[in-house]
C-alpha cells in the first residue's frame, strides 16, 4: 500500500509519542535500579555509567516536546488527542526528573564509604523497591490504559513515606553516635530523599494518566504521610 491516509499519519504521530514515553520510562527504571545497585555495592563503575545514561532521557524529553508542539500546530488536536499530547509532555518531564534523581543517587556513591551498617543499605534497597514497583505499575497502566487499577498508587505512597521516615530517623541516630558518620549519612539521607521523590513523580504520572483517559482530575485526597518534618531526636532540641 503506497497511499498514506492523513488520519493514519496522525495516528502514527500519536503512537510515536507513547512509544517514546515507554522507552524513556524503561530507561529511567533501569537507571534508578542501577543507581541503587551501585550505591549498595559501592560500584563506582556502574555509578559512572548511570551518570552518563541520563543524557538519553534529556534527549528523549526534548524530542517529545518538539514532536508534541509540531502535532499541536499541524493537527489542531481536540479532546482525547489533545489530552494525550499534553499528557505526554507532562509525563516525559516527570520521567526526566526521575532520571535526574537516579543520576544524583549515582553521583553520591563516591561520597559513601561503606562503613555504615548493612541494615541501612537494606533499608534503602527496600525503599527503592517500593518506589520502582510504583513506577513500573504506573507505566504498565500507561500501556494498558486500565485506570481502574490506579488506586494502588496511593497505598504504595503511604508505604514509601513510612519507610522514608524510618530511614531518616535511623540516619540521624548514626550521625549522633559518631560525628565521622555525618558526611556519608548526609549523602545517604539525600539518596533516600531522592528515592522518595521518585515515588512522588510516579504518583504525578498516575494522575496525568487518569486525566488522559477520563478527562477528569484524580480525586484530590492525596494523603501526606511524610512525617520527617516532625522528627526531633532527644539531645537535638535547642536549649532556650
Amino acid at each position, binding site marked *: 500500500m503506497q497511499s498514506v491516509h492523513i488520519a493514519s499519519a496522525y495516528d502514527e504521530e500519536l*503512537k510515536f509519542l*507513547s*512509544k517514546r514515553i*515507554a*522507552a524513556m*520510562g*524503561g*530507561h529511567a*527504571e*533501569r537507571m534508578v*535500579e542501577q543507581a541503587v545497585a551501585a550505591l549498595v555495592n559501592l560500584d563506582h563503575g556502574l555509578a559512572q555509567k548511570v551518570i552518563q545514561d541520563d543524557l538519553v532521557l534529556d534527549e528523549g524529553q526534548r524530542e517529545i516536546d518538539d514532536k508534541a508542539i509540531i502535532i499541536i500546530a499541524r493537527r489542531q488536536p481536540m479532546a482525547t488527542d489533545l489530552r494525550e499530547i499534553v499528557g505526554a509532555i507532562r509525563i516525559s518531564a516527570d520521567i526526566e526528573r526521575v532520571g535526574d534523581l537516579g543520576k544524583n543517587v549515582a553521583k553520591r556513591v563516591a561520597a559513601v564509604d561503606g562503613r555504615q551498617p*548493612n*541494615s541501612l543499605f*537494606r*533499608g534503602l534497597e*527496600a525503599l527503592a*523497591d517500593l518506589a*520502582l*514497583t510504583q513506577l*513500573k505499575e504506573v*507505566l*504498565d497502566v*500507561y*500501556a*494498558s490504559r*486500565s485506570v*481502574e487499577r490506579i*488506586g494502588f498508587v496511593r497505598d504504595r505512597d503511604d*508505604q514509601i513515606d*513510612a*519507610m522514608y*521516615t*524510618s530511614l531518616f*530517623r*535511623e540516619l540521624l541516630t548514626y550521625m549522633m553516635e559518631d560525628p565521622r558518620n555525618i558526611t556519608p549519612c548526609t549523602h545517604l539521607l539525600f539518596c533516600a530523599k531522592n528515592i522518595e521523590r521518585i515515588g512522588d513523580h510516579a504518583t504525578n504520572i498516575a494522575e496525568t494518566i487518569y486525566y488522559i483517559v477520563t478527562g477528569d482530575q484524580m480525586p484530590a485526597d492525596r494523603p501526606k504521610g511524610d512525617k520527617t518534618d516532625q522528627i526531633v531526636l532527644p539531645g537535638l532540641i535547642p536549649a532556650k
Partner: protein
Amino acid sequence: MARLWRNRWLLAAGIVAVLAVYFLAGASIYVLVPALALLAAAAMLPADAERQSADAAAAIEAGGLQRLSGEYLAAAVADPLIIFDHSAAMVHANAAAFAAFGGLAPGMSLALKFRAPEMQALLDGILSGKVAADAVDYTEKLPVERTYRVSASTVGHATGLYVLVFKDQSETRRIDRMRADFIANASHELRTPLASIAGFIETLRGPARNDPAARDQFLQIMQNQTGRMARLIDDLLSLSRLEMKPYLKPGTEVDLRQTIDSVIDSLGPLAAENGLVIDREFASGWLVVPGDRDELFQVFENLLENACKYGQSGGHVTVSIVAAEDAQQPGFDVTIRDYGPGIAEEHIPRITERFYRVDVENSRTQKGTGLGLSIVKHILTRHNARLSIKSEVGKGAAFTVHLPAR
C-alpha cells in the same frame, strides 16, 4: 473464479473480439451470449499443467498448518509466547504469557509493555527488518526477579507477523544469587554464637577446668547457642527455598479455617507456657483461598508465634478471619492481634527486612532469628497477598494478612 481472474487478459481480448464481430457483423444477440459464455468457460480451463501442480502443493502445505491453527500451536508451547504485528501491537499471546505478564491485551503495544532498553532495541531491530531473528537477555526485577532469554523472529514469509518467545532462566540465575546471599548472611549471623561457644570452650579448658557449677552453666549456654545456630540455618534454608521458586503451583486451594485451627493447636503449648489464651473469631461460611497449605501454615505459625512471644504481657491473643471489605478484590483478612507492648511506629515499615530487629536483646532471649517476618513476606508475595501491620506503643500489635480469593 481464481482461474477466471488469472486469465483475465485473454478473456478481455476475447470479449473485445466477440463484441467487435457482433457490431461489425450485426449478428443476433442469441449468438453473442453463448459466444461470451464459451470464452469464459475457456478461460476457466487450467492454463497449464505445471501451474496446476504447484497450486496443489501449496494447498497441501497450507492445509496441513491451517488444520493446526496458530492458536493451538501457541497454546502447545510451554514458554510464554507473544505474536505481534509490524506496529508492535500484540496479536495473540498464549496462556503462559498471560500468566507470566499481567495486563496483556490484544492490540496493546509491546513497546509500551516491555520498556527495558534491551527489549526496545530487540523490537526495533526485528521490526525494521534488519535482522530476521535475534535474542537478548531480559530481567524483570519487580515484583519478583525473573530472567528470560527472549528470542524474536519473523513468522513465515511476508505474513507481517512476528513472534517473541521467552525462555525462563530465573532458576539458574537465582541459584547463583542464593549461594552468594546464603554465604554472606549465614557467615555474618553465625559468627556471634560461634564466637561465644569458642570463648566458653577456652574457659572450660582453662580457668573453669575444675569448677563443676560453672561447667554446667557454660554447657547450658553453649547448648542454647548451638540451638540458635540450628534455627538460623533452618530459617535461612527455608528463605532460600522460597526465593528459588517465586511462583506458586496454580490450582491448589487451602481451607483457612482448618489451617489456622491446626496452627493454633500446634502453638497451644507455647501459649500456655507464656500464660496466654488464644481467642478465635472466625467468620462463618466457606473460607477457602488459592494457595499452598504448607506455606500458609508457616505464615500463620510465624505470626502467631511472634504474638505469643512478644505479646506475653497482654494475657490473650486474638485470631480472626473476616471477608475483606474491599469490593474490587474479594478475599479474606486474617488478623493476629496481641495486647503486648506494641511496636514503635518507626520500626513498622522495616520489620519485614532480613535480620531487622526492633530489640536485639529481646529477640535473642525469645530465640528469634530475625528471619520470621521476612519469610512471611516472601510467602505472601507469592500468594499475591499483602501484610499490613498496625500497632501503637503500649496497645499491642495487629498483623493482618489480606489473601485474595480467586
